[in-house]
């Protein structure tokens, strides 16, 4: 436990942590402002808003739909930033030689791998919470720009489900970023981690549209798609691409399976690897 808390301390104080959260928060705010502007354009019926359905945009700006919108943005923007962040954080354990120090002090390699990821995951939780709170404010600001009422975010009927979705978002992000962690630790290179996960992220978004059906079937169960489904978001009305492909509970179980499996592979690899340099 001490190793995890110490890990949080060492990662939290890095400039990259603050920068990553600021970028994610900035993107989230931009998204809401953009949605608000699009809503106004759709309502006004000008050339810019032609063919746009205002209800799609109002769903993003009014609660409880805004909750799902915030979590969706956290997973997408937070996901890509999280992947890069995790690869960067874990890569420096090799490049700075601090893993070498820990091992030469008699620290169990597997425990160190698990504790380091747990620390990073807790930082991700912090990032999720910061983004979520910012998202609440951004939804209100967006609704204000759009000239509509955001509604009541503290509806007792919605709140318990919201906490569960927040928790699922954190688990989904952790599972997704465990891929970056595994690649970086196995390859002993943050460049390899960053490159691989960005490539994977892009393929996950573009690939299913271009690839044959049987490959699409496989993609459904890979970390990006399955973690997205695990959050259990309802999706905006009129958006054909939103919503879940796999049942959220099953998706959550598979997501946790990915998380555990990737960390186990990382442990096995680090246990066996020779630490030189």
């Amino acid at each position, binding site marked *: 436990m*001490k*190793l995890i808390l*110490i890990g949080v*301390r*060492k990662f939290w*104080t*890095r*400039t990259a942590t603050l920068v990553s959260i600021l970028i994610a928060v900035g993107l989230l705010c931009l998204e809401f402002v953009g949605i608000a502007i699009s809503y106004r354009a759709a309502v006004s019926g000008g050339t810019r808003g032609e063919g746009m359905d205002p209800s799609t945009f109002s769903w993003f700006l009014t609660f409880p739909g805004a909750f799902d919108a915030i979590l969706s943005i956290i997973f997408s923007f937070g996901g890509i930033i999280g992947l890069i962040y995790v690869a960067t954080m874990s890569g420096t354990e090799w490049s*700075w*030689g*601090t893993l*070498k*120090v*820990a*091992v*030469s*002090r*008699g*620290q*169990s390699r597997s425990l*160190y791998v698990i504790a380091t990821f747990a620390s990073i995951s807790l930082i991700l939780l912090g990032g999720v919470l910061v983004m979520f709170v910012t998202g609440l404010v951004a939804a209100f600001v967006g609704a204000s720009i759009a000239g509509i009422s955001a509604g009541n975010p503290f509806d007792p009927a919605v709140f318990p489900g919201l906490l569960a979705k927040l928790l699922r978002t954190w688990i989904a992000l952790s599972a997704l970023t465990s891929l970056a962690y595994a690649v970086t630790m196995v390859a002993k290179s943050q460049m390899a981690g960053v490159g691989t996960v960005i490539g994977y992220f892009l393929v996950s978004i573009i690939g299913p549209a271009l690839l044959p059906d049987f490959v699409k079937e496989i993609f459904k169960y890979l970390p990006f798609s399955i973690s997205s489904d695990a959050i259990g978001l309802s999706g905006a009305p009129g958006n054909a691409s939103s919503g879940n492909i796999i049942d959220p509970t099953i998706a959550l179980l598979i997501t946790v399976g990915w998380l555990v499996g990737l960390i186990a592979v990382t442990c096995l690899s680090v246990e066996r690897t*020779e*630490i*030189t*340099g």
Partner: protein
Amino acid sequence: MTSGATVALRTKDLKKSYGRQVALAGLDLEVPTGVVYGFLGPNGAGKTTTMRILTGLIRPNSGTISMMGQPFDRTRRDLLHHVGSLIEAPSFYPHLSARNNLRVLGATGLAVSNARVEELLELVGLRDRANDRVSRYSMGMKQRLGIAVALLNDPELLLLDEPANGLDPSGIVGLRDTLKALAASGKTVLISSHILPEVQQMADIVGIVAAGRLITQGPLDELLTGQAIVRVRVRPDEVAGANAILTRIAGESRVEVTDPEAAWLVAHVAADKATDVNRALAEAGIYASGLEGGSDLESLFLQLTAPPAPPPSAAAPGTIPGWNSGAAS
């Protein structure tokens, strides 16, 4: 070598290869408890590989290791709780201060108290800069901090690879005093360094490796006694006469003419015989233009680790003499 004394570290037939490159070809080390052991060898001799194996970073292909009387392998990493090490460059989190680095790194392995952290900051002279980010530290300050990390768990066995790297003179003196004090208190220090005069001042026992094997190992005094020399320079036309006089003092086959052109002769006698040599030459009417007695570790090291001289035609163009003995470590 150590009959009666306890052994802090012993390796038996330790072998390690990286692909076809043989780093260790059967290393047998024996480091008694409570000494400073100078672990010497040219570049690529296998010193760093040995250190990495001893700290569990890499595994040997074969051979056995015992630390503090217990066999050490990947199932006994707990033994490393009693080992401190500084291997190659010191490693830190550059965004953290020295104090926080010691706390963070001290959280691995055996837990370390804050009081111990403060004690070490004082010992290595970093207390005044303890809250500065390590990224702002000079190389010497990082080295001091690296030594502090090695001492975190008050180790029984300390493994230091070039610990004097980048240290200023006061840092070197401090390091020497600290290591001697540790050995005097019953701890064992294995130090690898290329600064041989420094090792000579610190080490009780020396082991010299080359090409992955131990060439010699023993108390420094004994090794140097057997290697004592007196070097004499005379006029070229007096070499034969000087050779006869030196042979009379040193004995048959104990005198070499190492440089006939410059007329340098070397007699294998105790360094304190230099006065006798000078007197005998003067009485014979031969006045030395150069005379020095010595038994330095550097001479011993060079003699033991020198590769066989290649024929002149085999020398690569541009090769600097003496730079062709290393491989990779």
